[in-house]
Structure formats: C-alpha cells, structure tokens
C-alpha cells in the first residue's frame, strides 16, 4: 500500500467552480499526484460512494469539501467524509458561509418546487406532479434526496478543521495550504491551528492598493452607470459599493484590482458579528452630512437610501446562512379588527 497521503474532494450544493480552482493550480496538480492519492473526487476520478463507505474511519488524510448543505444527500456525504477523514476543510465560500446557494434562504423549498414544476411559463404539468423523495415502482424502490428549506454550512453539520474562503479559493491560498500539509506529512511540521481560516486577519481595504480619500457620498452607483472608473482611487470614494471594509483579506484584492467592487466572497473578519450588517453600517455612515441635512425629510432619506437597490443581495451575497438572521421569515399579520 502506498504511503502517500489520501485526498478527497466533494461538491455538495455548489457550482463546480471550486473543483476547477483545484485543477487550476497548474503543474502543482502533478505534485499533488506525487504526494497524494485521490481517493474520491466525483468530477475527476471514478470512485463510487460505496467505495468510500467501505473505507476505514480516518483513512482519508484531508477532505476538501466544497458547496453548501442543501439536501439530505449533501448532509449524508458530509457526515460520511467527516468520519473517514483526519482533516476536514470547508473549501470555498459555499462550504464556509453558504455562499451564493445560501441566497436561496430568501425563499422556501415548497415555493421553489411550486415555481419550477407548476409556474414556470414553459412548464406543462396539469396534474401538478412534484418530485417525490421515495417511489415504489414494480421494478424496485426509487429514492431522491430531500431538498431542505434552509441552506446551511458544512460546520452546521460536522466538525470543520480549516476554512478556506473564496469563490473559489485562490490558487495562492490553495498552494499555501497544500504546502502546509506537505510539510506536515514529510517533515512533521505542525499544521495551522484547528479552526483556522486560510486567509488574512485584516480587511480587504488593508490589502487593496487603491488611494483612499474618504470622500462623503451623495449617492451610490453601479459600476456600469459611471462613464469611467478611476483605476487608482478607492471604489467607495467613487460611489461604488465595495464590500472591502467588511471583508476578510487574503485574495490579493483580485476584483478591485480590475475595477470591480468586492462582493465579499472571503466573508467577514473574525471581529465581525454579521458581514452584511457591518457593511450596511459602514455604508450608511459615509453618506454626506452637512447643514442641509436638517432640511431633509424622512421620506427624502428613504429615497436616498433606495439607490441601494437590493441590500440583502448586496450585503449578504455570500453569507446569508451565517448572518444573524439566517433565512427569510413569513409574517402572519393578525387581522386588523
């Protein structure tokens, strides 16, 4: 039996981008093959779940788990891989914070089913048949995973050793982590402390090279609403909502370097309670306050803030499932007697 380390990669509720990011480490991937046996990676190697089920506990050195937990199958595989792995890495923003799939928490599973199977304009389903979790056919029993109402993170179900945020994680951070595992295996070097986030403790603004003028805003713009974006000046100073002040550094300021605002994929720093809430506070505070302010009515303030079209989608694009309020609610307004 080979003495290489054993790696697994799995996609739960994800887009596949995290798998591609791992393939993107260039020739390093060959080094990975020298260092590690890939025991399970649905996108790249043909191993079945039953093969994983047959492995002894703790057999896998590290699982890089990407995707949020959205259905019973995601949950089952997460628990199975946890049991079979020494190190469990929440790989990518979806696994760490729920990510983009987490925005589904704005709705409910039954509404989604109803829309997809009844209300979509191209749908023809007069009997209103919806997918079942179990079906007993004469030929045998059929099963489908159950879709949950609420998208959750990997940590909501199993113990996670390391968090590697990013949508997807950047090549540098992946390499940094693989180096650490390699050193650990070959030279006995210590691994990062359990629970570590493989990124920086600072905010993105700290890592971003743009000039900060701390201008006061009169309104906000979407990037395409401006004729020109100054390549040197802080995007917030130009009225573009950039999540940099509330977001953890570690990506190398990838988006802001090409004049795209940060959307927050690295999630909040450890000091923040709620990623979106801290950005909302920051943004509301940089609007201009002067003598004319006393004359603005409450309605004018509402109008001013309505320039921010979709606060939830903007401030919680990647972190709704780890926010203080993790999903939408349904009011049952009492009748006005």
């Amino acid at each position, binding site marked *: 039996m080979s003495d290489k380390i054993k790696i697994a990669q799995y996609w739960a509720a994800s887009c596949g981008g995290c798998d591609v990011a791992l393939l993107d480490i260039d020739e390093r991937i060959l080094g990975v093959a020298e260092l590690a046996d890939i025991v399970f990676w649905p996108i790249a190697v043909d191993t079945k779940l039953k093969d994983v089920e047959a492995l002894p506990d703790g057999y896998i050195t590290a699982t890089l788990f990407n995707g949020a937990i959205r259905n019973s199958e995601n949950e089952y595989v997460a628990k199975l891989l946890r049991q079979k792995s020494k190190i469990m890495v929440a790989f990518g923003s979806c696994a760490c914070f729920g990510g983009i799939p987490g925005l589904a928490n704005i709705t409910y599973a039954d509404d989604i089913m109803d829309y997809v199977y009844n209300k979509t304009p191209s749908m023809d389903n007069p009997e209103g048949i919806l997918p079942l979790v179990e079906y007993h056919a004469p030929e045998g029993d059929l099963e489908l995973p159950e879709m949950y109402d609420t998208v959750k993170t990997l940590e909501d179900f199993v113990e996670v050793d390391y968090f590697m945020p990013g949508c997807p994680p950047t090549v540098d951070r992946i390499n940094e982590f693989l180096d650490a595992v390699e050193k650990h295996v070959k030279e006995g070097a210590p691994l990062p402390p359990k629970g570590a986030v493989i990124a920086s403790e600072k905010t993105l603004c700290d890592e971003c090279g743009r000039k900060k003028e701390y201008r006061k805003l009169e309104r906000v713009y979407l990037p395409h609403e401006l004729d020109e974006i100054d390549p040197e000046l802080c995007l917030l100073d130009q009225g573009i909502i950039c999540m940099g002040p509330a977001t953890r550094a570690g990506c190398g300021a990838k988006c802001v370097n090409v004049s795209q605002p940060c959307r927050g994929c690295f999630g909040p720093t450890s000091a923040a309670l709620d990623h979106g*809430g801290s950005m*909302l506070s920051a943004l*509301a505070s940089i609007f201009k306050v002067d003598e004319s302010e*006393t004359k603005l009515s409450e309605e004018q303030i509402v109008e001013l803030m309505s320039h921010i079209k979709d606060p939830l989608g903007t401030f919680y694009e990647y972190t709704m499932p780890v926010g203080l309020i993790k999903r939408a609610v349904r*009011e049952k307004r009492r009748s006005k007697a």
Partner: protein
Amino acid sequence: MSTQTAVAAQEQDAWEPRILVFCCNWCSYAGADLAGVSRLQMPPNFLVIRTMCSARVDVEFVLEAFAKGADGVLVAGCHPADCHYIGGNYRTRRRIALLRMLLEQYGFDPERLRLEWISASEGEKFQKTMVEFTETIKDIGPNPIKEE
C-alpha cells in the same frame, strides 16, 4: 375548530409583545425618565437599553434582537440638529432607513423597526410613542422567527 387550532388561538391571545427600546443618553433616555417620574401610564411591554448616541446602535444589535425573538425595536434619539455629537442621529436615520429595507427583504414587516426623535423634555412624546408602538406591534403579531 380542531383542538390544535384552539390551542394555537389561545396561545395567540396570551401573547404579549416584547419590545426593545434603544434610548440615546442625552435626549431620549431623559425623555423616558421624565415619562416615568411624571407617572405617565404606559404598557409594560418594553425594555430600555441606554446607548451614548442613537448612532451607537449597531445594525447588528437590531438584527440580533429580531433573531432572538424581539417583536419590535425602537431606536430613539435627539431631534435633527440636536445631537450631542453633532451628526450621529443623521447617520442613524440613514442606517435605519436602509435596515428597514433589509428587514422587509427578510420578510419582516418593516414597521417592527421604528425610529423616533424624543428630546429630554418630551416625556409625553415618549409615552405616546410607546402606547402607539405597542399597538402597532400587537397588530402585526408575534415575531415569526420564533416559529421557524
């Protein structure tokens, strides 16, 4: 009526709103105090937290209050142009306007979050606000997060 709905209806009737009030130290807290010492009658459904400025009320405080089941949150500060720190209340009102938009997207009735300017001499305004706000919240009903 099934037993279950009867029990649910009974529970609804027994429900009393729980309201969290953030009062700025310089105006609204003194206003609330004045309402108290003047023995103005108010519903007993609220708790007051004193902050140094209405702008000290982080968005997180309000979100956490709702996440933990508060039925309503009131933020009270000094009137425009009266802020002890010059412009804190202007930041507060932008923040609250935006936060109400956010709460609405989360599915909450935005009326659950209210902003009111109450000066130190406005004991009566504090009383009136609390009576009205408690009525509003009774009308909207319990915070739906508790049933999730």
